[in-house]
């Protein structure tokens, strides 16, 4: 039997990228600003979402998609503050993909949403490889993780629009060198916006909220 070579040249994640484009179109139709939040577990994704809800939910209609390996712990917290939320359990999967998000969008009142947070699974290795249909990719790095993380997970930091540096209230107790952290992040990603905050003390939250307001306005004027 003769062997024949067939050229394929297809991206392995091509199907995900197509679905992400579909999601993006759908969200654009409703004028929803969508933010994909990525970080390691415990960096403060849910805290940032809850804090933002606290400050903005009176004038901005927010919805949340929660991605977790298991449980609805995070979704319960968001639900408790009266915000529409859908929990995706990846059953062991270490990232969200565009298909999971498409299903979740079916369960949200999209015509009543201005701002959608998608909280990805806590992981710094692969979530950035899966587009979901977002406008903005946001990463949270927290000071206790150490300032060397951008060098360990360069692709994550290179692919993001905003880096929230959380837990800055802990600086006095840590060796975290913000200057060297910034140097590597900007080196990898010269257009990135870095916003130091503390979800606990509220430090820096105003800068984040102002940045978010500007992004919302930009989206609504499109």
């Amino acid at each position, binding site marked *: 039997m003769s062997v024949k070579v*067939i050229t394929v040249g*297809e991206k392995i994640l091509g199907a995900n990228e197509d679905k992400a484009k579909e999601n993006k179109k759908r969200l654009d139709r409703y004028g929803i600003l969508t933010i994909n939040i990525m970080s390691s577990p415990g960096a403060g994704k849910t805290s940032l979402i809850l804090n933002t809800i606290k400050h903005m939910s009176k004038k901005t209609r927010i919805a949340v998609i929660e991605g977790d390996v298991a449980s609805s712990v995070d979704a319960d917290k968001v639900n408790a503050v009266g915000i529409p939320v859908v929990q995706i359990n990846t059953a062991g999967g270490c990232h969200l993909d565009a298909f999971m998000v498409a299903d979740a969008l079916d369960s949200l009142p999209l015509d009543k949403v201005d701002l959608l947070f998608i909280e990805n699974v806590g992981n710094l290795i692969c979530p950035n490889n899966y587009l979901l249909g977002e406008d903005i990719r946001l990463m949270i790095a927290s000071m206790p993780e150490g300032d060397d993380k951008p060098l360990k997970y360069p692709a994550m930091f290179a692919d993001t629009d905003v880096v929230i540096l959380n837990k800055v209230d802990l600086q006095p107790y840590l060796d975290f060198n913000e200057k060297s952290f910034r140097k590597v992040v900007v080196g990898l990603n010269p257009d990135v916006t870095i916003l130091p905050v503390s979800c606990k003390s509220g430090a820096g939250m105003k800068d984040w909220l102002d940045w978010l307001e500007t992004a919302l306005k930009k989206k609504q004027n499109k």
Partner: protein
Amino acid sequence: MEKAGEAKAKKITRINLVVGDLAGVVPECVQFYFDVISKNTQADGAVLAWETRPTRIRCRKCNKEFTPVSHDWACPDCHELSMEIVSGRECYMESIEVE
């Protein structure tokens, strides 16, 4: 499978994949799942052949292109820490071999 069907092939014997060091793909894991899902299909027993591409980065200051050693991403020539990822994120199926 679609491509193999178009070529009226009976069996897929080899799948040639290209994966970069930064793509986050672990060939052994993929092989494990592949063996399970390809059972009793045209691709049952096909070899997954991996061509790996190293991480290549370019210094934004002096344009030197290099492969970082361990986690040292500073330019070996000018020591600048400002870099663009040139390759290493590939993840695609280059070709399949059928009979």
